């Protein structure tokens, strides 16, 4: 006979301490070794867990009224600006808002961690003063105890799965996917794979509006699908909220991504009632079955090239094979803490402290992620490059100097006989060569050339020039053929045209 049970029946068992609860990792083992039928018969609840950087996190805070009262206009907490566009003493502090001086080292996520840890937080607020709220400034220290409400409210958490990242550029880059070494030197990923909440309930049968969850070590609720919810491609997300006062800094941690920003690490776990065999089968999903893509984050575009199809089993193995080379890969999220979330939730249910809820409404199973509508045309290197003036390495410096004057340029691209890139010479290099009586071009040319690809956005070209303190980038294709050159003069002209 096929197993069927209701959430009410499961809750009765939980109250009596008789429910069988396993984590999603344990369920995968049970389904594999004993089959779906036995798993469905024996298991009442599967607990999931994830612990990752969730930038779309923040807290609503209510400070209570001072005497005389103030209608806050500008507000900082430990120096981090909170958004105040609500009522007089309400504010929203976002995880990614950075401290103006400490930048990547301290931001909203860290203030949230400090609050949850019970630490004192400095509040500075200013106002314009009104007839009913005359006070114009306040400076005080508060702890979470002093707040009327502190509600963690995250519009997009618990991505069903996520892309893995690597870097094909010949330079180190810092991204929201971590520090990525040049030339595919390492890779990172995020997510807990077979432990992930939505992955274990991919049709959103049990997770919906009103589902009670583990959030940051306390109790929270799913309030709906999250922003950018994209279920058709397996990138579902959740909007969640919970009482920050019930949470625990072990599962809510400020995070720093160098040269990118601050964030909040959130521990989130959802219990999945095994109502039928189908759910037993779905919660039996293994890392091998959860596919994702390894993308080249070295390409600064919205659609980054897919380097390889992969799955969470390969990602969790520590090495990923790319072009016959095994490159080290690890998570930015914590599998260890994700396991801790799932097993803590399991214990709560076993001890009768946590009852399951039926969703009040199902999450949408459609809706797609649209790109941002850009009213102004995006400009790429190929739109602003000019023809490159070239020379070969065996030409003498006088000839190159004449070419610079005749063509009125500052950069001459050195090419191989086949026409591919071999170096670059600037007018300053030539001037210096004359001063030092250097005759050979090969001894003054720069061989490590910073280049642009034709579809690279102009902002990215400008960043590269600033970073390397240079004023032009040869534009090349994958075979290193010279397509043109982007110069800082050209970018300045462009900027002028747009004013």
């Amino acid at each position, binding site marked *: 006979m096929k197993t069927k049970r209701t959430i009410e029946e499961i809750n009765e068992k939980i109250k009596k301490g008789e429910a069988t609860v396993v984590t999603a990792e344990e369920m995968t083992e049970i389904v594999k070794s004993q089959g779906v039928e036995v798993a469905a018969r024996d298991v009442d609840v599967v607990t999931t867990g994830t612990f990752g950087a969730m930038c779309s996190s923040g807290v609503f805070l209510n400070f209570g009224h001072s005497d005389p009262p103030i209608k806050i206009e500008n507000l900082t907490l430990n120096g981090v600006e909170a958004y105040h566009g609500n009522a007089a003493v309400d504010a929203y502090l976002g995880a990614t808002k950075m401290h103006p001086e400490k930048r990547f080292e301290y931001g909203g996520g860290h203030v949230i961690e400090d609050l949850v840890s019970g630490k004192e937080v400095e509040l500075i607020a200013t106002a314009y003063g009104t007839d009913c709220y005359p006070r114009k400034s306040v400076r005080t220290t508060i702890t979470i105890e002093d707040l009327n409400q502190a509600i963690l409210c995250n519009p997009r958490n618990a991505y069903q799965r996520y892309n893995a990242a690597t870097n094909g550029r010949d330079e180190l880059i810092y991204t929201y996917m971590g520090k990525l070494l040049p030339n595919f030197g390492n890779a*990172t990923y995020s997510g807990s794979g077979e432990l992930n909440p939505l992955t274990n309930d991919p049709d959103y049968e049990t997770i919906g509006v009103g589902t009670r969850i583990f959030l940051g070590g306390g109790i929270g609720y799913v309030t709906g699908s999250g922003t950018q919810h994209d279920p058709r491609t397996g990138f579902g997300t959740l909007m969640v909220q919970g009482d920050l006062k019930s949470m625990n800094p072990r599962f809510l*941690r400020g995070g720093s*991504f160098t040269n990118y920003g601050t964030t909040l*690490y959130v521990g989130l776990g959802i219990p999945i009632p095994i109502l039928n065999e189908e759910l037993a089968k779905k919660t039996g999903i293994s890392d091998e079955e959860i596919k994702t893509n390894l993308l080249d984050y070295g390409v600064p575009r919205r659609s980054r090239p897919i380097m390889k199809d992969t799955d969470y089993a390969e990602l969790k193995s520590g090495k990923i094979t790319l072009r016959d080379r095994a490159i*080290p890969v*690890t*998570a*930015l999220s*914590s599998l*260890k803490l994700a396991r801790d979330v799932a097993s803590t939730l399991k214990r709560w249910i076993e001890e009768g402290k946590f009852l399951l809820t039926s969703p009040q409404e199902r999450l949408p199973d459609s809706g797609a992620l649209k790109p941002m509508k850009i009213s102004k045309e995006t400009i790429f290197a190929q739109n602003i490059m000019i023809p490159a003036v070239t020379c070969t390495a065996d030409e003498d410096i006088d000839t190159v100097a004449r070419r610079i004057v005749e063509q009125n340029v500052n950069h001459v691209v050195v090419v191989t006989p086949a026409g591919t890139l071999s170096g670059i010479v600037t007018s300053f290099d030539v001037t210096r060569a004359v001063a030092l009586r250097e005759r050979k071009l090969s001894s003054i040319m720069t061989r490590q050339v910073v280049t642009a690809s034709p579809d690279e956005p102009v902002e990215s070209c400008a960043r590269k020039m600033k970073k390397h303190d240079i004023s032009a980038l040869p534009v090349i294709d994958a075979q290193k053929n010279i397509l043109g050159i982007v110069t800082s003069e050209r970018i300045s002209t462009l900027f002028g045209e747009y004013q």
Partner: protein
Amino acid sequence: MKARLRFDKQRTAEPIISTVILKTKAPINILRAEVDESTGEVLIEIPDEKAESTLAAFKQMGVSIQVGAFIEISRQRCIDCGHCITICPVEAISAEKDLTVNIDLEKCVNCGACVDCCPTRAISMLQ
């Protein structure tokens, strides 16, 4: 054993390490060297049996010496994500079976590459 040598500005031009090698005949392995406007800092490895005489020779030449661990992971801050494992150039960082991340101080060359990759700033260089 590993030792960190610090030279002041006046000494950065002198062949101190070679002098010590010639004097002690210790096969010193230079793991990392960094020289800037004001100081020079070199991380060396010395065979244990030559450690005492070598360090004494450096001290005699006015070099300040530190031995022991130069980097540490705060267990309280670390979330064991493992990102640092992929960054370490000498494979000194690894995860145990229970996923706890550890630095092998024997292998570490004190380069600091892992410090700014750590999302919870759990790794610090000891000064």
